[in-house]
């Protein structure tokens, strides 16, 4: 099952400090919906405030991204720049 | 809206009448590099601007009785190009060359720099050291005033409402004389002096200093003429001991403030440093060793 790593406090507050969880999902969109179900508010936070790194590559928005069973999904704060 | 009037008289008398008759604040415009900044920022709200640049002789340099006479509104760049001034007063020239940018030097004038009465003005310590005389004209006629008697406090001068400076007289140079000016700024250009130092001196044939004037800028409410520092040089050659005494005398004279440009402590230390460096250049020039720009 894809492993979700929650990095940084802005999301951990929804999971009660839990930093790693496994979620049965084959697409990132599915994963977000699962997270929202398990930790109300987290899905919304991920949608609005977070970027995601799937197997190392950072996506600002990854709805369409396909997840493999061994995928590592890391939730990180969105990044802007100058 | 109160109208800001402007006049560009072509004679001294006209200019004096305009200044005397002005209701409210009248300002003399020569280079304008300080005046316009103060007007734009709202710090200064004059009612009348008297542009003196059309008065014959107020722009230009002539040699007279072995010395140079520089028109009060002569742009710094013009002075920098004048062979006579470069030969006789390289320190004054380099001081003008350090005012602002090339663009500023196309406009800024000795009179403006002096009458803005900023303790940090670059050309002023050099003028003090040179012992320049300001030729002042006004309702009571014409008088000659040592430059150090013009500024009285920051932004204030001893000139009467109807007076302005027409020209500056630089005395003839004895043999083996030299002057120099250095200022310290955090960058290499475009800053206001944190400390400025001008020195003019004359040596005998053995290299012993027989006459000296030492001036410091930005270390007191007005530019200082430091007699003790001059005395530290007179009667001596350029040696470590002399420089040490000069350094101490310069520091002792400082009465600076803490501000965004420097602390009391830092300004005082740097005043000593600059005095030593400027003296070395002035000695070299007096002995004909070096010429030209220091940057």
């Amino acid at each position, binding site marked *: 099952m894809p492993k979700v790593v929650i990095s940084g406090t802005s999301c951990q507050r929804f999971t009660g400090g839990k930093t790693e969880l496994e979620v049965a999902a084959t697409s990132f969109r599915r994963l977000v919906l699962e997270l929202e179900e398990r930790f109300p508010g987290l899905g919304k936070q991920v949608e609005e405030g977070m970027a995601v790194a799937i197997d190392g590559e950072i996506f600002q928005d990854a709805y369409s991204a396909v997840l493999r069973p061994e995928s590592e999904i890391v939730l990180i704060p969105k990044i802007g720049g100058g | 809206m109160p109208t800001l009037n402007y006049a560009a008289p072509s004679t001294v008398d006209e200019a004096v009448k305009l200044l005397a008759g002005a209701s409210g604040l009248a300002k003399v415009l020569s280079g*304008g590099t300080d005046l316009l900044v103060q007007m734009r920022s709202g710090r200064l709200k004059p009612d009348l601007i008297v542009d003196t640049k059309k008065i014959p002789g107020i722009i230009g340099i002539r040699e007279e009785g072995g010395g140079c006479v520089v028109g009060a509104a002569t742009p710094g760049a013009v002075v920098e190009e004048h062979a006579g001034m470069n030969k006789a007063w390289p320190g004054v020239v380099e001081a003008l060359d350090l005012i602002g940018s090339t663009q500023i030097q*196309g406009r800024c004038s000795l009179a403006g720099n002096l009458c803005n009465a900023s303790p940090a003005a670059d050309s002023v310590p050099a003028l003090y050291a040179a012992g320049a005389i300001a030729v002042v004209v006004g309702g009571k006629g014409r008088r000659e005033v040592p430059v150090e008697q013009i500024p009285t406090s920051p932004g204030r001068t001893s000139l009467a409402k109807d007076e302005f400076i027409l020209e500056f007289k630089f005395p003839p140079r004895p043999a083996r004389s030299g002057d120099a000016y250095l200022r310290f700024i955090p960058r290499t250009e*475009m800053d206001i002096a944190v400390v400025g130092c001008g020195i003019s001196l004359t040596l005998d044939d053995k290299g012993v200093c027989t006459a000296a004037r030492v001036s410091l800028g930005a270390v007191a409410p007005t530019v200082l003429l430091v007699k003790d520092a001059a005395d530290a040089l007179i009667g001596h050659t350029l040696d470590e001991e002399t420089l040490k005494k000069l350094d101490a005398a310069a520091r002792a004279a400082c009465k600076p403030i803490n501000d965004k440009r420097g602390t009391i402590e830092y300004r005082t230390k740097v005043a000593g440093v600059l005095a030593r460096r400027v003296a070395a250049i002035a000695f070299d020039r007096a002995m004909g060793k070096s010429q030209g720009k220091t940057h």
Partner: protein
Amino acid sequence: MSKHHVTTSINGEPVEFLCETQQTMLDTLRDVLGLTGSKEGCASGDCGACTIICDGRIVCSCLMLGVEAEGKSITTIEGIAQGDHLHPVQQKFLEHAALQCGFCTPGFIVAAKALLDENPNPTETEARYWLAGNLCRCTGYDKIIRAVMDTAAEMRGAAAR
């Protein structure tokens, strides 16, 4: 509000305009005459973006009153190129990519042209000090200085030919 009638020459053409006393030459160029090539970056003579040539010398047009233009001969960035024939310094700025945002560029072009008119063979140090009154925040000055030095070399070459 009483306005001054000013007769002057800008980029080789006789020009008459009306201005108020407190209007600087920069205000006059931009707001009265529509010559917006000269830029306002500071209005205090510290950035050089408004540099013009007045009677052969570069000045900050923000530190000159419009009324002072009376009887003067003025060159602005709009007068540096001859029609569609660019001045060598303009050409070199393009070739060397000596501009990024381009806002400081008119001031640099005018100041650099004046430098080369006065000193056809400047050292890098002379060029850097001459242009110290022109701020650029994009380029770090490297390509600007290279463009100016290369222009000087090319103009000397042309003069020699």
